[in-house]
């Protein structure tokens, strides 16, 4: 059988090469992680449970900062967060799959009862707007860093009634700015998103005459330039000329931004102005003691408020069957609502820290988290 002679030595060598690479990698642990035999943590918190969260990707960067900061406070606790999206987060939470969720829109009238069942009572659902982020209306126009626009002008640009940058409507609000005779390319999100929902909600509330579409997470105007995610939108805006779109302020730093008309004044997007609008908005009533869902006053005329904001909620229960889990949730919520937690998130995600008034309002809900008795 001459034709079937095998090189057995070569065969062994080949298998050896294939496996040795994997062994090499598996041999050493991660340099920045403590050996598991650690034990005896001196951290103040008793929290040592493992909790999982899922939900909005908008919170991902803040959540990273929170998880990292929390692991410094409670070294034995493990917190994970899957940025599967708000819808996925709410579904997993109402199914009892995760201990907390992050969501860009509050639990709706169908989800709330499910959440209440999972948590064991109508007052047991905690919902707090702990992540507030201004949405910048960003554009790419040579030599122009900032423009003033009223809600009506913004609406007309995004529904393609205004198609040139030197349109009289824009020029009237920006006396002295040299506007080119250039086509406007509006850029929108191609994926369903909380950012789009908040932006369209703003347009339909603040410019109802010019924006006739309902608030929706899916961009309603067909035929525009669409890109995936905040990164995609920012990439498309900066990649083109005469483009305009909407994205988290923190990610739109290098682009020109629009000062939005509020009342008679124009407010530039800042975290402070964004936090102010949440402060100025009423909570939704009658949905549970610890449910702090807000009805944002998008059409506000109050000075110093920036109405184009994304509010993302942290959803949890006040009761957990497992004591270690309850402890961990409690200290984790405590951490993220604390001024250190909010500052850490703000440094990494550029969001607006919540005010002390808000924190005082949320504190009873966090204190109520306990093991089910």
């Amino acid at each position: 059988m001459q034709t079937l002679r095998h090189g057995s030595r070569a065969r062994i060598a080949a298998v050896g090469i294939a496996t040795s690479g994997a062994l090499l990698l598996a041999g050493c642990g991660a340099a920045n992680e403590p050996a598991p035999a650690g034990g005896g943590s001196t951290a103040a918190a008793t929290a040592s449970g493992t909790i999982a969260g899922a939900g909005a990707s908008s919170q991902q960067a803040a959540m990273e900062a929170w998880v990292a900061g929390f692991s410094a406070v409670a070294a034995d606790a493990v917190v994970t967060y899957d940025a599967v999206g708000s819808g996925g987060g709410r579904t997993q939470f109402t199914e009892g799959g995760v201990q907390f969720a992050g969501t860009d829109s509050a639990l709706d009238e169908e989800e709330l009862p499910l959440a209440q069942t999972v948590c064991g009572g109508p007052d047991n659902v905690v919902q707090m707007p702990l992540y507030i982020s201004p949405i910048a209306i960003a554009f790419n126009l040579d030599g122009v860093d900032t423009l003033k626009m009223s809600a009506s002008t913004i609406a007309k640009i995004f529904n393609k009634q205004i198609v040139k940058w030197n349109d009289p409507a824009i020029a009237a609000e920006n006396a002295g700015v040299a506007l080119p005779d250039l086509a406007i390319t509006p850029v929108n999100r191609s994926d369903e998103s909380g950012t789009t929902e908040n932006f369209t909600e703003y347009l339909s509330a603040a410019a109802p005459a010019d924006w006739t579409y309902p608030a929706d997470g899916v961009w309603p105007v067909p035929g525009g330039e669409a890109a995936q995610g905040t990164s995609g939108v920012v990439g498309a805006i900066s990649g083109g000329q005469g483009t305009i779109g909407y994205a988290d302020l923190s990610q739109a730093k290098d682009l020109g931004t629009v000062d939005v008309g509020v009342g008679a004044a124009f407010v530039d997007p800042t975290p402070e102005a964004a936090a102010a609008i949440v402060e100025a908005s009423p909570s939704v009533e009658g949905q549970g003691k610890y449910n702090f869902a807000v009805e944002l006053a998008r059409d506000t005329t109050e000075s110093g408020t920036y109405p184009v904001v994304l509010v993302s909620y942290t959803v949890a229960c006040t009761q957990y069957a497992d004591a270690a889990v309850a402890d961990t949730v409690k200290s984790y919520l405590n951490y993220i609502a604390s001024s250190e937690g909010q500052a850490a998130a703000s440094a990494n995600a550029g969001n607006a820290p919540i005010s002390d008034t808000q924190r005082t309002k949320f504190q009873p809900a966090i204190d109520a988290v306990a093991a089910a008795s």
Partner: protein
Amino acid sequence: MTIDTTQRDPDRDIAPAPPVTLEKQGQLPRMIVPGVLVAAAVVVGVLVALIGFNIGLFVIATAIVFTITLYVLARAVEGSRKATDRLVTAVVTSAFALALIPLVSVILTIVTNGVARFDAEFFGSSMRGVVGEGGGAYHAIIGTLIVTVLAAVMSIPIGLLTAVYLVEYGKGRLARSITFFVDVMTGIPSIVAGLFAVALFTALLGPGARFGFAGSVALSVLMIPVVVRATEEMLKIVPNELREASYALGVPKWRTIIKIVIPTSIAGITSGITLAIARVIGETAPLLVTVGLVANVNLNPFDGRMATLPVFAYNSYANPGVPRDPYIDRAWTAALILIIIVMVLNLAARLIARAFAPKTR
């Protein structure tokens, strides 16, 4: 619809009757090919320079001018058959060069962007406790290897055995329906495979089950059909003479398959399996919904979330913090490592194939 170009002419099949009136018997000198190429490049270069130089236009125009000139020259000197042959040679070579352009571009993009964080820390650290700069993908590398190896361990035997069944044993309705549904399976969108795995493990273990093995199952759903199709094709073209010779020597069928059929086609099979692994190792969506993402190392595929390179890369790209750069850099480096892993795998597969294949030539 490539069939047209390969249409057989029944008459030609039996004997490739060369045209009786033989054409000019001339022969172009060997140096004609580089000569025409240089001439074409110079002429096109001058013309393109006149309207504004553009490297893409220059290369494409040169290729076209070169091909046409060579064809015309060959037709005049050597006759139409040789000219056609030269034409096809030029076209096939250009096609290969064309296929290299995206490869070079992709690799350049990844390497130039990924090299910034290609350091020891990236390989030695996880993301636990890391905010902003620093950190690494050790946890994701380990996670990707574990999840993919598990998927391969499930998919390769199933795929290989199925292909063997289809080629060697299968006949009738069962084999036909397997062949057909394997084809259908190649069209399952990756996210649907992920959702299926989630639904499966939710039904088995209750909601909230996220662990490496679930991701492996999702990847297997995507990988099995690729393994079957590639292996089936390779087994089919093993010459029947080999099988018959083996049977004639009294070797039972199963040993014939293991000792003759599979070794003969092992190069193609490993190539197919490597393609299948490459297909799934970079999957993002199914792993995001089944395995999730963590910042720390998790070596147990049956308990808890794991980080994987594609999800890590996607997440770093899609949800960067402030400033963006460290996140984007980590995403590119993770992508670079993913490619390197597949390259190493490919190389290993080739070594294995060479070691196991019978020395026939």
